[in-house]
Structures are given as C-alpha cells and as structure tokens.
C-alpha cells in the first residue's frame, strides 16, 4: 500500500500511471480498429463479431471494466498532474510567444484529452447504449435487426449512424484529435517509462507518428466510405424491410440478449 501511495504521490509515479494506462488504451484503440475494419467485409462479418462480443459477457464485461479503469486512471492522474503543473506557474509571461520548439500536440494534450473524453461519452451513447436521441437519424439503432439471424445489425447501424454528415464530421475531428494525442502520447509513454535513448528516440518519435496516422486513416475510412455510399442500399433495406417493432422485441425476448 505504501508503495502505491508513493507512486501516487510522486510526479513521476503519476507519469508512470499515465504511461501504462495510456499504453493499455492505445492497444485497445488498435484492437477496436481491427474489429471495426471488418466493416469492409460482407455485413455478416462485423455482425458476427458483434454478436460474439455480446454473447460472451464473461469476456466483455471484464474488458469494459478494465477499459473504464484505464480511462479513469488516465484521466484522474492527468487532472492531478495538470493541477500541479498549473500551480507550478502561478504568474504567466506577458510576452506572447509559443513555447520554444514544443509541438502543438505536446502543448495541447490536456485539451485534446478532454475533447476525446467527451467524444467517448458520445460514442458510447451513440453506438453502445444506442440512445436514439443522439444519432439524429430518427431511427432507433436498437431496432435494426439482421434479417437472417435476427440479431442486432451492426453493419446497418454503422451505415445509418455515419450517414449523418455532422456526426461523421464530429467523429473525424475526434479521431483526428485522438491521433494527435497518440502521436505525442505514445512517444511520451516511452519517455515516461524511460524506454528511450538517443538511438531510439528518433525511431520512437517517427513510429508513434506513423502509428497515429495509420490509426487515423483506419478509423476515418469507415465514415468516409459511408458518406461515399458504401452499404447505403443494405442499410435502407434493413431500415425499411424489416418491421421493426414487434418482430424485434419478439426475437430479443426469445434470445434473451441483453443490451
């Protein structure tokens, strides 16, 4: 306990927490992307993936709680560090000059972090909790069912959700911020954990940037392809073809799938 308290109390300790939780979240972002990219296969692929996740709560919930804990640690230590950092300079400089040689990403980590956090909340409401009020399509995503299996149609939900241009735009901006956050954060993680020296420093910095760009392209490809028309027909079919209300609830009740 004493050790944990020591870690929490020291500035470096909190940086380790930031770095390790950040590393976990980074891995999640990659895993999540790999899952999402199944969107480019036939609709059944990503639906199967979604059904698999939802039907194994003993895997899903520990993962969700773990992620929540990582986010919690990441945010709490960030807030604490930011407060300490602010307190360390009570009086600001009058000359308006950008901090020397510091990248924009590195200077705006707290801001990009805060926006990403709000995005995550929206994203969860949008696609996980499926609150109808936030998707601006008039459709309850909860009511989209795959015709063959009768399970939730994730593919259609994605198409539907991203077909609203301003939702996609917000998504793109947020992913963009996430990737700037990662571009600096991943390199900083190596720095914070001391896994970096003059030989590896430039490689790590480039690697982090390349990873951030690939992640951005990966995530961005989905809403962009939707706006360009991918899956439009299919989603229309799902939206209109199936009589939503009764059939949906009947199947759901039968399968006992929880939301």
């Amino acid at each position, binding site marked *: 306990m004493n050790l944990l308290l020591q870690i929490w109390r020291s500035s470096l300790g*909190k940086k380790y927490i930031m770095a390790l939780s950040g590393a976990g979240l980074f891995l999640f972002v990659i895993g999540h992307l790999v899952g999402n990219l199944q969107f480019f296969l036939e609709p059944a692929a990503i639906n199967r993936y979604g059904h698999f996740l939802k039907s194994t709560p003993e895997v899903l919930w520990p993962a969700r709680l773990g992620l929540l804990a990582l986010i919690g640690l990441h945010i709490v230590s960030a807030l604490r560090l930011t407060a300490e950092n*602010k307190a360390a300079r009570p009086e600001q400089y009058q000359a308006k000059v950008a901090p020397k040689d510091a990248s924009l990403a590195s200077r705006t980590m707290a801001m990009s972090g805060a926006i990403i956090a709000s995005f995550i909340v929206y994203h969860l409401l949008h696609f996980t909790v499926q609150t109808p009020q936030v998707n601006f399509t008039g459709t309850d995503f909860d009511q989209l069912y795959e015709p063959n299996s009768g399970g939730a149609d994730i593919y259609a939900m994605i198409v539907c959700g991203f077909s609203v241009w301003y939702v996609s735009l917000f998504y793109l901006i947020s992913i963009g911020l996430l990737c700037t956050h990662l571009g600096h954060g991943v390199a900083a993680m190596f720095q914070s954990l001391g896994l970096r020296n003059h030989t590896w420093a430039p490689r790590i910095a480039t690697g982090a940037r390349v990873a951030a760009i690939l992640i951005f392209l990966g995530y961005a490809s989905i809403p962009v392809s939707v706006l360009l028309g991918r899956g439009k027909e299919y989603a229309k079919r799902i939206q209109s073809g199936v009589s939503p209300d009764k059939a949906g609830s009947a199947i759901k009740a039968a399968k006992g799938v929880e939301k």
Partner: protein
Amino acid sequence: MKVTLKVWRQKDRNSPGELKSYQSPELSPNMSFLEMLDVVNEHLANQGEDPIAFDHDCREGICGTCSLVIDGKPHGPHKGIATCQTYMRSFKDGDEIVVEPFRAKPFPLIKDLVVDRKAFDRIQHAGGFISVRTGAAPDANAIPVPKENADLAMDAAQCIGCGACVAACKNASAMLFVSAKVSHLGLMPQGQPERYRRVKAMVNQMDAEGFGSCTVTGSCEAVCPKEISIDFIARMNRDYLVAILKGDPKAVRGGGAG
C-alpha cells in the same frame, strides 16, 4: 542602434509588478545584452531612478547566474547560449524587447528580474553527490570509466543550474535539471552505489519544491544554454521506476561494536 525595453519592474515579492517601458541610449551592436542593461542602468541612476535589478556574474556563460526571459524565450533568441552571451547584434534598431523574470512558483521573485533559485540547491542537498570523504579515494585510475560513459556523463554534467528549463517549460518542470544531475552521477561507476537512493531523494525533493511534471514538450532542451538532451529525463524516469520498485531498503538492526 536604439531599442525600447519593456522590463518587468517589481519592488519586492509582496508588491505588485508591471512592465515598464524604457528607451535605451545609443547602443553598439557589439554590446552583450547585459552590457546593454548596464548602460540603461547607468542612465537610470544618473537620472536618479532605481536601476533595473538583474542577476549576472561571470558573463561568459558558465556560472548560471544570469537569467531573463527575453521576448518570451529564456536566455534570448539564440540556441545553446546564456543571456550573457547574447549580443545586441541579434536585435534590430528600433526593436521593442520584452524582458521578464523566470517564472515559477519554486523560484520566488526577489526584485525586478531577479528570482531566488535556491530550490535547485535543496534538490542537490537531498542527494546530488557521491558520498566520499576527503582522503578516502582510491587511485584515480583504479576504476576505469568507459569513454562513452564519461562523455555522456559530461554532456549531463555541463548543466550550469540556471533554471532556464524551468522557465521555458509550460509546467515549470525541473526535470531537465534534476535528470542532468542524476544522469551525470548515475553514468559514472563511482556513482553506482547510491544510484537508486539518489534518484529517489532528488525526485522527491523536486516534487516537494512544487515544480511541475514533464509532458515531454521539449522546450527545456530547446532553451538550455548547454543543450542538455531530454534523453536524460528518460534515463531518470527509468532509474526512478527501478528505485520505486526496489522499495525502501530493509531496516538494519542496531548493534554496538563490542
């Protein structure tokens, strides 16, 4: 040439301060920035005004006494030098130059542009040394030091303790300073016995002084008059992590000697 100075004037810690404008007398581009301030101060003194207080001593970039944030950058516009090595030829006739003190909570202001940097000393007192009594040393060549290590240690040891890293960091973090000290001693074989004890003590004191933490922006490295690399911060982070994981040493049971 002539310049307009906007200088932070503050009588003491408890009085409010403000930027005041001063028109310089005729200057030579070959003057150092501090010589320019000397000339302005002579001018002020001759007019019966209180001269601008600023810190300086060796005026050759090695003592670390001079400070100043010039147009938003600690130690002025150039890389790898201190304020005292900044020359007026770096400015143009008619320029307006804003001169402010180093700003950080652990560096309380004394007067005008002078701040108190004793926090650095206290960090050093906590562990910035190798415990060797005078007279107890083995022959200097008894312990070979790989040249690469000695060179790298020297890169870190060059730190002049001026505090520009703190002044430039948006978090007023002292990590570059502390890591330079920790790395210098930690790279030398002579520094190994106390390596982890040292890093722990110094980082804890750094925290106690109220410096911010590192968000790896690299500003410190960019303004450091000795161009000390933030690679040393990574090295310190690693050492501290190991130190924390090792935990506190086991208590030694007391016992008299006969």
